[in-house]
């Protein structure tokens, strides 16, 4: 089913426009592609996150803090937070654009979506870094 045939239909687009590949909206498929790239990076990072949470469950505070402050765990968590929060921002923006038709409401919802994702990302990253650095003190 993969269609690799070259497109030989005549086009009125200029060579410059075709090379830049951004289409009528001037955005191209960059965000669509980034959504897929973060989907791919989510797979190993989320699996690592599930293992980390399973190891954390039921541990007393010092052990839980020691686990999160381990460099490998902290780095995997930071990468996971970055990948997931970017992926979920783009994902929910698509949902908003599909269902919220009022223009003002749509813009407000898209901005609120970004704010939520940034707050979640910063809260998680701050917490991971703080737990990690406190272990050194």
């Amino acid at each position, binding site marked *: *089913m993969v269609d690799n045939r070259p497109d030989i239909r005549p086009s009125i687009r200029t060579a410059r426009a075709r090379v830049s590949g951004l289409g009528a909206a001037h955005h191209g498929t960059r965000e669509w592609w980034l959504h897929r790239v973060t*989907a791919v990076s989510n797979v190993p990072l989320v699996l690592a996150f599930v293992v980390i949470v*399973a190891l954390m469950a039921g541990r007393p505070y010092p052990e839980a803090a020691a686990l999160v402050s381990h460099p490998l765990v902290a780095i995997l968590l930071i990468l996971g937070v970055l990948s997931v929060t970017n992926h979920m921002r783009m994902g*929910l923006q698509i949902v908003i654009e599909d269902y919220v038709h009022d223009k003002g409401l749509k813009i407000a919802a898209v901005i609120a979506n970004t704010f939520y994702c940034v707050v979640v990302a910063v809260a*998680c990253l701050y*917490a991971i870094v703080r737990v990690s650095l406190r272990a050194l003190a």
Partner: protein
Amino acid sequence: MADTARPQNPAGRPVVRPLSPHLQIYRWTWTMAMSVAHRITGVALYGGTALLALWLVALAAGPGAYGPVAWFFGSLLGRLILFVYTWILLHHMLGGIRHLVWDFGHGMEPGTRIAMARYTLIGSAALTVLIWFVALVAR
């Protein structure tokens, strides 16, 4: 939107254009159900990241804040939430892998695409049970 912008017939009434039928008219198929499930699980995970942030911030804040949060996630309700969350996470993950395969144009044949949608549900349920079995019993 101003109504005057819409095309009108000679009698002055707006032209009633035929509309394509909406979702409820179609017979449910595996691919349709799993597509809807992918979006719903995605939105649920979106909200669920607040729980992740809560847990990590409590850990950073110290034992006083971490105690109650750890107690909640260890309680019956907390474990139920985490169990359902695990399934939602894995279902969205397997659904995403399925969509990635489709994005590259593979697996679109009638039998294959329905089987892939079906295995998303079976696989996510099996993996959830396996992970919880390992986490609870075998560790």
